[in-house]
């Protein structure tokens, strides 16, 4: 079985390792490019959301490179992602491909189905061994997320543009080479040290901006034009609300999602409307409570939950006194346009910061707000 899967940001590496450990030949997915975008868009329904189109393109590229099995996952309603597999498969079939598809839904909803599919993936590995491999991949994901978070903190302070990104890629290289649990741990520490070596100006004043929105365009930097790197180099520290590890904890292994974000969203959007719509609202409230300078909402064009969330953003922005910028992304979005709007936004929040420094007000009792979900980089894990 030559297996491939969607490119899911840096966590791709952990997935790849897991599948290799299980003894499969892996066709590692390529980071989506403009080509992937257009290939996917051509073969997708016009109003499918961009993650669907990117996945479509990624799968087609993988099939060309010889894959005969695909791995994917999605929530089971109320939004579209859970139906991705079915439609992707039908379109692929229409184009003459017959991949074997492993499409996972949240295990608590369909436990038997999940076990069956895991069994299909297991091959000759014993269940116990498989659990070990999964644990290892999980450690790897944590290490990758830690590195990424740290890079977001360091980049705005770097004294030489691009130094952080370079160090970050080296650190990723360490992790890629690690095979065992111990090696992963070592690589993680080495990577963190490597990032700390980036020459920084610790006294520089930076802006803090929270990122909310749909999961795929958050965790796959190629889907958002490496927004965090752009922002970092403009002197902004980004705090993203979704990372692979907290997503897995909140949404894969529990039925309620991120409770604190849902709670914070209550006064505005009391119901889970699928995707991360409710989280987007809750996270805006949280970022505002922590006196962030602004929030960026990332959403695929036609993304249903994020459109609902966006309809409340003007109100939230006013009530909580926090600037919010929304990007709806589709295959026609151009990097240049994103950059221009970002620059204008950053200028605006600098001015606001200056005003705030002059004499400030806060609408919140901060003690009452639950903690930041961003995982602090802790090398000892």
């Amino acid at each position, binding site marked *: 079985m030559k297996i491939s899967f969607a490119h899911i940001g840096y966590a791709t590496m952990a997935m790849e390792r897991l599948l290799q450990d299980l003894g499969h030949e892996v066709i590692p997915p390529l980071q989506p490019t403009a080509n992937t975008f257009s290939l996917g868009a051509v073969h997708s*329904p016009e109003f499918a959301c961009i993650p669907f189109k990117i996945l479509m393109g990624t799968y087609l590229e993988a099939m060309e490179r010889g894959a005969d099995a695909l791995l994917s996952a999605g929530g089971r309603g109320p*939004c579209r992602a859970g*139906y991705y597999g079915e*439609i992707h498969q039908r379109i692929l079939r229409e184009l003459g491909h017959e991949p074997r598809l492993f499409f996972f839904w949240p295990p608590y909803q369909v436990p038997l189905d999940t076990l069956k599919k895991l069994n299909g993936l297991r091959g000759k590995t014993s269940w116990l061994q498989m659990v070990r491999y999964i644990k290892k991949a999980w450690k790897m994901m944590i290490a990758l997320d830690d590195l990424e978070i740290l890079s977001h903190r360091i980049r705005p302070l770097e004294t030489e543009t691009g130094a952080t990104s370079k160090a970050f890629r080296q650190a990723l290289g360490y992790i890629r080479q690690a095979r065992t649990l111990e090696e992963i741990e070592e690589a993680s520490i080495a990577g963190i040290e490597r990032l700390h070596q980036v020459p920084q100006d610790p006294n520089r004043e930076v802006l803090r901006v929270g990122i909310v929105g749909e999961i795929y365009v958050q965790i796959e930097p190629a889907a958002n034009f490496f927004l965090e790197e752009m922002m970092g180099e403009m002197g902004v520290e980004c705090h993203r609300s979704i990372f692979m590890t907290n997503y897995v904890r909140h949404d894969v292994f529990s039925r309620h999602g991120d409770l604190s974000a849902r709670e914070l969203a209550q006064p505005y959007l009391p119901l889970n409307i699928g995707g991360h719509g409710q989280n987007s609202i809750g996270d805006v409230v949280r970022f505002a409570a922590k006196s962030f300078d602004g929030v960026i909402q990332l959403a695929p064009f*036609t993304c249903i939950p994020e459109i609902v969330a*966006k309809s*409340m953003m003007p109100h939230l922005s006013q009530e909580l006194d926090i600037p919010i910028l929304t990007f709806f992304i589709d295959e026609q979005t151009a990097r240049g346009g994103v950059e221009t709007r970002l620059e204008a936004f950053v200028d605006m929040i600098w001015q606001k910061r200056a005003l705030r420094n002059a004499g400030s007000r806060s609408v919140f009792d901060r003690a009452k707000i639950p903690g930041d979900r961003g995982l602090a980089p802790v090398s000892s894990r």
Partner: protein
Amino acid sequence: MPKTIGIPRTLAYYTFFPLWKVFLEELGLNVVLSRQTNKNILEMGVRDAVTDACLPIKIYHGHVADLKDRVDYLFVPRMISADGRSTFCPKFLGLPDMVRFSATDLPPLLDLEYRMRRGRFSNFLFFQTLGEQLGYPLRQVSRGYLQARRVFQAYREWQYAGLPPEEAMREAESSGRPRLPAREVKQHAGLRIAVVGYPYVVYDPFINANLLQILKDAGCEVWTVERVADSRLRTMSRQLKEDLYWYYSNRVVWAGLHYLSQLDFLDGLIHVTAFACGPDAMVDKLLELESRDRGQVPFLKITIDEHSGDAGLVTRLEAFLDMLKARQRPGLTPRV
């Protein structure tokens, strides 16, 4: 003075209005509908609603704007589920919140959750809560509910018999259930076309540029989702590995599959969809692929947007009908 309750004339209105209206009127309340969708309503909707919303949601905001100054309450229930098997589109789930945060100077909203499970009881609970909120005793509420159910049942039957929603409402209220044998399929000389899509898209002549009338004027007999029996829809659902997650979308796909299987009855299938509708990206692909696989009933997709009034739609429709006429086969017998 009885209180006035405003109901926006779109979205779930097309399915549930008789149920709501009769119930509220039985309590002695005054029910006011917004005007038929028109240019002004569209403009107000475009102004109020979030830019990236689909056309039907914008239009809903327009209807809210049309009503808000002349009613005591706005009836904006949070439609969650109608069959216990699927939910409504996520935009329905967040609809009261969208309205609340997009429009200004609103009267109080009646936005309780409509969450049906199997069985009638949960339906009653909705009305019980509604009655309580408005301050009516249980006995009156129960009576109103029973009456509303009766009319609603009749409404569904009239629709099944082929009346468009507004006529079906009138008939259901004035003459109760249809007395004729529920459906009579006559021989028909012209084309038989199935038009599937969400009721708020198919039955609102303003947003679909009067599609149904154009078809009728061209001598076609038109069949819609509402004319397929629920039991038949359930049967068709087994042809798919997995349900879609949304109530209206499921019904459209199932009805589409039903019509695609009526080879010697039907001449063509049209799917009407709104610009940038999320669920329809899936629905339309499914229908397109199914119709291609089966390869017998020609399929046309029509996307409507804010400017569908223009000639493009009519031209495409005419071309489609011409194509169908060219391949029409005589002596078809209905199989329903």
